[in-house]
């Protein structure tokens, strides 16, 4: 058995390496910029020295003796001819220079004031960063330095400036890195403590490099092109430059070259080392490839989304996963996923051989990788992985004994994790049971589309197969669809009926719908429901009675349908379920839809997840089956208005247009009553908008009342399955004012919106009011206005996505460590209390009913029962 390791890493200490440490940790001194000799073997003392690790197959590392992929690589070093400023410490160097004496290197704070400031600084570093602390020291020194003298040695201080990025000036004189170093060396440890620096961990002179560590070859591998040519990594290129210039500098110094030559080389070395650390320093031209593209050096390797931290460390890749197009399959259970057999034969589940299951697992090996259900690999107890092929199969079968692990094909009932990006909430990744099916797409029940926010217009989804028992149990217990029915966002069912199933159940449960008992049984059977004994034993049964078959026998519930807000006296308005019988009320989006109504939530609460899952899938089936039997279709005639509807609409539009003309006339005459705080023009626009929007809403109401009441269109709108009153109005009456950038359309040509209007026409149609409806068809100018707003909303979407994405990232990053602890308090990682009790009452939203405890239900239950 493998040994269980509880925690391998318990802490990470950050620090700066001293020159001595760099040297001690190095395994090779690099002295030549050459990489390989004539035979292509790495040069000793070169940048690809075999002591730094190996990247060629066949070679062995001289330091650890291991081969490629085994050797982790080892550091080397270069001895710099002259000290060089480390660019990342430039701001620290400047701060220290400005706050220490140029002669005695003491901090420019008198000893007697020291202790009080130390206290203050400790507080700062407790709350802020080191930079804040340095800023405060700068302030203190600026306050204290009334005369420009050092309080310790009385030396006169000069102003230090920085010529970015790495040149420091004292007055007019340039301070060489050698001088900087010698000044820093003299700073006593106790002064460093003021800056929050512990001298055993870091000394400021270390920020001026005298020795440069050479990163191991393994972190800058070269690639061999097809032509056999070698292409070196960007870092190797940069290091080559550094070593070359460093050697030249050495030679020139030894040869006693003129100071100018040496200075120039020194500056060049500074440039190369600076760009080695960071090639995006704003004051320097970035070092480039011959092709002109900038080199990717250390900083750009680490930072940003594609950098090491966010790309490789915080984000991982997985094996045992699949991705393909999704398609709907209402015959699957809600918690199932249909997996194509091709994928099922590639994804595997490891099963350990025991004396009890050996025969069962042998069958898979016999089938091999090509016959389903088979197995692809056999893992021996020593960890050797054997591929099962036609040739090896017989031998492996013989070898098989307890302790082996068989990687068998995916089978019905296996646990999987199903995911659709963007994974915006936890319901974007749920555990489903596998159902292996023919075909090439993942199949899922349309009822679980809502949490994934998926549709079937070509969406692809990912499937992961957990590989350990622990992972499988966690997926099953915590992520399975049944456990995710209630959204933790608002405490209501997010997996519910949609579209057709809502319309279907709506039609079924409407007042007055009835079927003969035989027809009812036919309907139920088609929907896979067989509790016929719950149907009343009479010749005709109502739709409500048919629907009641789904409900638990002792279920009591009171609620409202969508109808309630319109007409509370409508017999369908009040939903009343008594002892599992739908007494009154119609089932619509208010009761069956996602994120609305307490009906589904209450059933879930009272009877548990298994019952609600069963009811949900039956409900869906029943709704769809009702439509299959009785039809739901849409035709243009659904948009015809009966009676005087058409006239009413025309009147409404006419009235609104006349009103607009009146307002404009008043405006032109200057008699428009100005709203407080608004200009005349603003008042005009707002009043017109109000008038026109009122017209559209009125038309919506007219359409709702005068369109054929029993049309499929009305059923869909009434049930809440799809569409609203405004959309009705847009189709049958008028499309309405097109809003653009928060007002009527006003831009386009000079002083007019389109060239077919007069200049300065403020009238309704000239400013984007679309008086026609979609049924009648739009006038040309109306089409243009609609295209304008259409494009505007397209732009809105395009701009919104990255903005809200970034907001989400920030939120997730800030809040991810907040966890409920054993004492019910919410704390962050270090144990600081954020809330004493989560949400002030400790109630988990996902366990609540719309964010509350449903007291009324409890009270009613006790009072009635």
């Amino acid at each position, binding site marked *: 058995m493998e040994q269980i390791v509880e925690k391998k890493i318990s802490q990470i200490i950050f620090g700066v390496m001293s020159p001595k440490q760099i040297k001690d940790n190095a395994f090779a001194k690099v002295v030549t910029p050459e990489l390989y000799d004539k035979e292509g073997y790495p040069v000793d003392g070169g940048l690809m020295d075999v002591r730094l690790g190996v990247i060629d197959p066949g070679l062995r590392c001289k330091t650890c003796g291991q081969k490629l992929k085994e050797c982790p690589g080892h550091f080397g070093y270069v001895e710099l001819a002259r000290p060089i400023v480390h660019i990342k410490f430039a701001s620290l160097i400047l701060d220290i220079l400005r706050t220490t004496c140029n002669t005695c290197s003491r901090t420019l704070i008198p000893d007697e004031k020291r202790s009080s400031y130390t206290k203050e600084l400790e507080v700062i570093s407790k709350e802020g960063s080191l930079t804040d602390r340095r800023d405060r020291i700068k302030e203190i020194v600026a306050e204290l330095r009334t005369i420009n003298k050092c309080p310790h040695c009385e030396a006169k201080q000069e102003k230090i400036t920085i010529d970015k990025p790495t040149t420091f000036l004292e007055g007019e004189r340039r301070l060489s890195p050698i001088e900087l170093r010698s000044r820093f060396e003299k700073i006593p440890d106790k002064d460093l403590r003021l800056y929050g620096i512990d001298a055993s961990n870091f000394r400021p002179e270390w920020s001026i490099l005298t020795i440069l560590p050479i990163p191991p070859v393994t972190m800058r591998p070269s690639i061999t092109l097809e032509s056999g040519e070698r292409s070196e990594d960007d870092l190797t290129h940069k290091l080559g430059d550094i070593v070359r210039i460093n050697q030249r500098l050495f030679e020139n110094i030894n040869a006693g070259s003129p100071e100018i030559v040496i200075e120039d080389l020194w500056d060049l070395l500074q440039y190369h080392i600076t760009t080695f650390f960071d090639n995006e320093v704003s004051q320097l031209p970035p070092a480039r490839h011959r092709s002109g593209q900038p080199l990717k050096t250390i900083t750009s390797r680490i930072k940003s989304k594609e950098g090491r931290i966010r790309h490789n460390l915080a984000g991982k890749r997985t094996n045992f996963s699949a991705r393909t197009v999704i398609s709907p399959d209402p015959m699957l259970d809600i918690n199932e996923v249909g997996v194509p057999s091709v994928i099922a034969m590639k994804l595997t589940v490891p099963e350990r051989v025991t004396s009890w299951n050996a025969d069962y697992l042998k069958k898979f090996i016999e089938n091999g990788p090509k016959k389903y259900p088979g197995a692809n690999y056999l893992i021996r107890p020593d960890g050797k992985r054997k591929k099962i092929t036609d040739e090896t199969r017989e031998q492996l079968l013989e070898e098989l004994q307890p302790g082996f692990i068989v990687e068998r094909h995916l089978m019905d009932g296996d646990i999987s994790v199903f995911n659709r990006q963007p994974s915006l909430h936890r319901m974007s990744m749920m555990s489903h049971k596998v159902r292996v099916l023919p075909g090439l797409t993942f199949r899922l029940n349309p009822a679980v589309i809502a949490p994934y926010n998926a549709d079937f217009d070509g969406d692809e989804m990912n499937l992961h197969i957990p590989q350990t028992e622990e992972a499988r149990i966690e997926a099953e217990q915590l992520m399975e669809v049944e456990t995710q029915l209630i959204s933790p966002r608002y405490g209501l069912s997010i997996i519910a009926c949609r579209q057709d199933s809502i319309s279907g159940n709506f039609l079924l449960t409407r007042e007055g719908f009835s079927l003969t008992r035989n027809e009812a049984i036919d309907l139920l059977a088609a929907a896979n429901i067989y509790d016929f004994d719950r149907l009343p034993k009479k010749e005709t049964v109502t739709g409500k009675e048919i629907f009641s078959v789904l409900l638990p026998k002792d279920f009591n519930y009171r609620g409202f349908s969508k109808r309630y807000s319109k007409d509370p006296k409508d017999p369908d308005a009040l939903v009343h379920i008594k002892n599992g019988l739908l007494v009154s009320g119609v089932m619509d989006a208010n009761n069956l839809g996602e994120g609305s109504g307490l009906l589904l939530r209450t059933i879930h609460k009272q009877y548990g997840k298994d019952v609600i899952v069963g009811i949900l899938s039956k409900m869906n089936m029943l709704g769809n089956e009702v439509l299959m039997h009785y039809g739901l279709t849409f035709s243009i005639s659904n948009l015809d208005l009966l009676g005087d509807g058409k006239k009413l609409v025309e009147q409404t539009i006419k009235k609104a247009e006349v009103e607009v003309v009146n307002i404009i006339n008043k405006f032109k005459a200057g008699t428009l009553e100005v709203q407080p705080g608004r200009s005349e023009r603003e008042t005009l626009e707002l009043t017109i908008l109000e008038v026109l929007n009122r017209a559209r809403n009125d038309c919506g109401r007219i359409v709702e009342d005068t369109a054929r009441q029993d049309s499929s269109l009305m059923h869909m709108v009434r049930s809440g399955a799809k569409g609203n009153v405004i959309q009705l109005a847009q189709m049958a009456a008028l499309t309405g004012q097109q809003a653009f950038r928060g007002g009527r359309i006003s831009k386009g040509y000079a002083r007019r919106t389109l060239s077919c209007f007069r200049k300065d026409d403020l009238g309704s149609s000239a400013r984007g009011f679309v008086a026609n409806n979609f049924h009648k068809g739009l006038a040309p100018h109306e089409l243009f206005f609609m295209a304008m707003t259409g494009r505007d909303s397209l732009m809105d979407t395009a701009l919104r996505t990255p903005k809200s994405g970034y907001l989400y990232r920030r939120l997730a990053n800030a809040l991810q460590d907040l966890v409920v602890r054993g004492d019910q308090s919410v704390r962050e990682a270090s144990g600081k209390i*954020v809330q004493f009790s989560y949400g002030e009452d400790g109630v988990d939203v996902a366990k609540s009913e719309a*964010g509350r405890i449903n007291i009324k239900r409890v009270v009613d239950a006790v009072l009635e029962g």
Partner: protein
Amino acid sequence: MTLITTTLETYKEKLPKAIIEQIALLVPETITKAKLDKICENVLEEYVSAQVESGDSVGLIGAESIGEPGTQMTLNTFHFAGVSEMNVTTGLPRLIELLDARKKISTEITEVFLKKEFNNAESVKRYASMIKETLLKDYLEEVSLDMAELKLIVKLNKQRMDLVDLKPVQVAKMLEKALKNYKIGVEEFTLTIVQSSTKDADFFSLYKLKEGIKKVYVNGIKGITQVLPVKKGSDYVIMTAGTNLKDLYKLEFVDTFRTFSNSVAEVEKILGIEAARSLIVDELMKVIESQGLNVDVRHIMLIADTMCMSGTVLGINRYGVVKEKPSVLARASFETPIVHLINAAMAGEVDTLRSVIENVMINQPIPVGTGTVKLKVK
């Protein structure tokens, strides 16, 4: 005491106040003791079973609950609220602004409530115009330049001044305060402005002054640029664009208990951190509800609490909440990783790997949910 109150009293420690109140409301007077006990017991059971489990990653769920609907919000700040409404920034921009804890928000609004004795239709209009910041140009009838005498003659509009009880002397005082080296003469509703030392009187500076005085602050409350008296329920309320709570609270007719602005930074400064927290919650809820979205308050409260935890309002960004994180790697994984790594190296910081992201980085179980549990005995 009745049966109901005495029974409920015993549950005071076990149930939140709101739940107890609701029970009292729902239970009929004539209830028997047995039934009431049963109800209380059942409610308590429901309440206890709905408690969060320890280890629950409430933070991330809170972030999801705001982040996910964020993608559905409109960027448009526009809404068809109508003529008699202030145009307020809503939607995603407002959400971002709130969570960033911006000092300067795009539309500052104060709802000024009036004390009972001033709460009527006539006074609300008068007070509204008194509050509004007015400049001299609002009261000007005419400005003319007397070139011969080198003086500026300012005629004031009596009507407008009477509306807010303003006397010419007061205007003159404000002018004197604003303009140095000038003398102001008052005569009825006419002011004359002369340079105090006649020696270097020059025409050109006087000419410039003619425009300059228009922008001199006269009265009202600085910062309040627009006022809109509206009726809200039984209250007359002055909605203002721009805000200055400090000065508003000094006015005798302002109901200081109910008046506050929508600027978190201002409320924090004047009313304190608890007020700021509760304002953040309210404002976030307002944004979300205005978009027709449904998010539980608990998530919002958690975010507000995180922002206000340190005692000052911190934004959800690298200068605020994230900067306060104890772990170097957690900070580095968010933004500006190099800065964090360098500073950590200089300070010799130690990362104890107690939060989520570092453990993801080093492939260890995260200290959340099932990861919080450790095996003591093998």
